[in-house]
């Protein structure tokens, strides 16, 4: 959604969990309010227990499925990332975990790239480059998208970090056929 210049679609929960969401932004904000309440509850209990990515994922699953069952869904597809964990929950309470996950157009355009390029021993630099490649394709092929992206990282027990938005370099040569001039029918 590019109505705003930099909507925060990836956020941290607690210190070391990342949440990213597609879909209705206000529902995502509501989900974040709930999760921040959960983190505060942990602080108040003061007993050394911390919500980790896995329990947040399970909690969201319970919430999303219940809302769907009441015919009043939270209209989001959500990715949860944390230490040794990457999971997905969607508006009807479907869940899965995998080594790479995508929502929206990403599941059509990015997943094939990830399937061919992902390795379990990717370095951080390689992983970032791979994500940028996927996001670049998404920019090329989704007319609503901008080339402004954010990448976030959580590593081991370190605090999660979300980058500032930055612009991807793109190369439009080779797309002349889509410029829509008088010659040809705009196809390739």
């Amino acid at each position, binding site marked *: 959604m590019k109505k705003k210049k930099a909507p925060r679609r990836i956020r941290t929960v607690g210190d070391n969990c990342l949440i990213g969401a597609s879909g209705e932004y206000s529902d995502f904000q509501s989900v974040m309010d709930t999760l921040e309440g959960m983190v505060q509850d942990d602080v108040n209990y003061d*007993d050394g*227990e911390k*919500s980790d990515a896995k*329990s947040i*994922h*399970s*909690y969201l699953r*319970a919430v999303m499925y219940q809302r769907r069952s009441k015919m009043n869904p939270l209209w989001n597809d959500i990715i949860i990332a944390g230490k040794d964990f990457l999971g997905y929950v969607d508006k009807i309470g479907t869940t899965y975990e995998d080594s790479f996950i995508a929502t929206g157009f990403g599941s059509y355009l990015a997943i094939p790239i990830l399937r061919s390029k992902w390795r379990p021993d990717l370095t951080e630099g390689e992983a970032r480059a791979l994500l940028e490649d996927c996001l670049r394709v998404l920019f090329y092929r989704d007319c609503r998208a901008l080339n402004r992206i954010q990448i976030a990282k959580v590593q081991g027990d370190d605090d999660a970090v979300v980058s500032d938005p930055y612009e991807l370099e793109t190369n439009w040569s080779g797309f002349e056929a889509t410029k829509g001039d008088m010659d040809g029918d705009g196809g390739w």
Partner: protein
Amino acid sequence: KSSKKADFVAMHRNMYDTDVTVFSPEGRLLQVEYAMESTKQGSACVGLRSENYVVIGALKRSVNEMSSHQKKLMEIDGHMGIAIAGLTADARSIAKWMRNECLNHKYVYGSAMPSKRLCEELADKHQRTTQTYVRRPYGVGLLVAAYDEATGPHLFQTCPSGNLYEFYATAIGARSQSAKTYLEKHFEGFPSTEKDDLIVHALKALSGCVTGDGELNKDNASIAIVGKDHKFQLIEGENVAVYLDKLEVDGGGTEGGGDGDAMEE
């Protein structure tokens, strides 16, 4: 002078002990204390923990030779169980609530309920009964044994008063002082104690709590263990006989008094 005070207390006990919400002149809630008395009348339970395990044990009473022995240890979840002393029916009601809480937590958060949180809520539940007209305190004390992935083994004791205590080792119920004395002597070595030896310690502690002419045997002894990579496991009957035999080999009985006749021949 002390007898005057005793008279004073005795005189006033009757006036202030009918309602749970009424303080006595000494600032005590007598109904709560009477409820704790119920715990002290129940047969003994012990609990002890090492670095990776918690063991709880209990002496099961039977009404007479024809009857079964009263169950004293109950599983709450894979990582948690309780030993009860006092009104069994109250204990079962509490166990039902604990099991429900653990199950709900597992459904929502996909992980085992942290034991300290559950016990704190349990203690608050006890307290609520001491501050309302229409209810009475729970007449049972619990030893809660649990192993949390994040924080390790725990042993908690709950009280009708709503107090919550955490222990390395403890005992409650009738003649439990004998067990406590034994545990006090040995608890510093518990953290490094092996699983089977921990169970033997529990049985030794329990053996001091039997009545004068009784003995610890496979019918009245009950043990449970929970720990790292070890789901809550009840050990009774023939399974506990194996450990009771070890008791006799070691020379049995407790050093804290009681005349357990665990020595064969």
